[in-house]
């Protein structure tokens, strides 16, 4: 999985490419933690190139979401692809992590 991030005036946009599985999820958490340490609290994850997520990925996202909540921050996910969206819906995560069809939609809510 590749992760790139860009700081916007509203928050940080993290772009994930590939798969968030048991092997790669820790890297996602580390990347977001690095931004949290810099004082960032608004994180948008652009998932347009994320083709796969397992429960390890969900666990990482939940860990990040819980941390952000304690800092009055938020994590938003944008542009989920088919199987990823399915996993979010089955697991109930779509009701606790805000999901947007587009990056613009997510940015507008920051």
């Amino acid at each position, binding site marked *: 999985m590749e992760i790139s991030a860009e700081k916007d005036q509203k928050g940080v946009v993290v772009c994930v490419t590939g798969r968030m599985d048991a092997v790669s999820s820790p890297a996602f958490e580390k990347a977001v933690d690095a931004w949290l340490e810099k004082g960032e609290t608004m994180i948008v994850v652009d998932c347009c190139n994320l083709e796969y997520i397992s*429960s390890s990925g969900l666990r990482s996202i939940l860990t990040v979401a*819980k941390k952000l909540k304690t800092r009055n921050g938020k994590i938003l996910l944008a542009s989920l692809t088919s199987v990823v969206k399915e996993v979010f819906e*089955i697991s109930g995560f779509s009701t*606790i992590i805000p999901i947007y069809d587009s990056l613009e939609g997510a940015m507008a809510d920051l």
Partner: protein
Amino acid sequence: MEALELPAVLENLDTFVEFVRSGAVSFGLSNKRILEIELALEEALVNVFQNAYPEGNGLVEVCVGSRNEKEFVIEIIDEGVPFDPLARPDPDVTQGIEEREIGGLGIFLVKDMMDRVEYRREDAMNVLTFLVSKEQAGHDKT
């Protein structure tokens, strides 16, 4: 059936996934269905990697094949502590962020994504079987 047996460690996850993917492609499943199978496989394997062998060293075997050419079959076999993943209660998927527990979702996703899931304990082995029915003709291959 074709089989692959390797040490039950996370480093081998990708190898097992490639192995099953190749079997699923040969069977003729859609890309979407294959991703779902990979997800179920990962959930089952990570569970074995983390819990089957408390002493540390053990093997896990993954077998793929077809049953009557109508069902794609995946078997995950380990010689670890007796464990029936289907006997666990489902996580509460209606909980909010604060209450939501980290973990517990793996087997829940497996049961949802696979057409059938079976467990048996045989000769000191845990055998977890996934069955995926061949998709209807004309099914969108994406």
